[in-house]
């Protein structure tokens, strides 16, 4: 299992499409930095193929005033959760 990191908003960059196409069936995706803008509907719908394996970083949501407005399909993790995700993955691939 690979963990993919995405730090771009789906509203401004198409890189999320390549990231999604590169993901295997059990890979996970963590939204960080400006990537967390995609954690809200309707942008989150772009990630429907990976619901259940889709995470967003709490501190990046909080600093942007978005905590509590996340789509319910997204699992929010803190920094420790981020580290845990990297422990569980064989490798980590960053998309930027």
């Amino acid at each position, binding site marked *: 299992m690979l963990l993919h990191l995405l730090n771009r908003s789906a509203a401004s960059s198409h*890189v999320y499409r*390549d990231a999604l196409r*590169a993901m*295997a*069936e059990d*890979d996970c995706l963590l939204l960080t930095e400006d990537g967390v803008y995609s954690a809200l509907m309707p942008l989150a719908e772009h990630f429907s193929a990976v619901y259940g394996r889709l995470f967003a970083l709490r501190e990046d949501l909080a600093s942007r005033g978005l905590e509590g407005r996340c789509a319910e399909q997204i699992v929010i993790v803190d920094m420790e959760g981020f580290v845990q995700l990297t422990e569980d993955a064989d*490798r980590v691939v960053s*998309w*930027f």
Partner: protein
Amino acid sequence: MSDRSPMPMLVVLRHAPHGSSWLREGLDVALVGAAFGQSVTLLFIGDGVEALVKGQQTGPLGQKGTHPTLDMLAMYDIETLLVDAESLAQRGLIETDLQLPVTLVAPERLPSLFAHHAPVFNF
């Protein structure tokens, strides 16, 4: 290199030439890996496919291009050049527009590429 990886290394090139140094610096990582005897696969995806377009030149102020570096890959024994077919089609390009022979990759093959290479460097 002390610990040679049992899997080939993957360098993913996602940026176009000239506009930024990502492509050049990504290629440098591939060259160094190969110089150390590591087997290297290149994957051109997204704007990275623009790196292969024929007829590129030096930029203004003598800014070096990356097209001579691509010609040099064979000297470093980097021979697996994969191109994401969808990225190519999205940009109105076909294989004969490219300066080197490449292997097109169908979308369903992408996940296994990432799974069967290590390390993976994404530029």
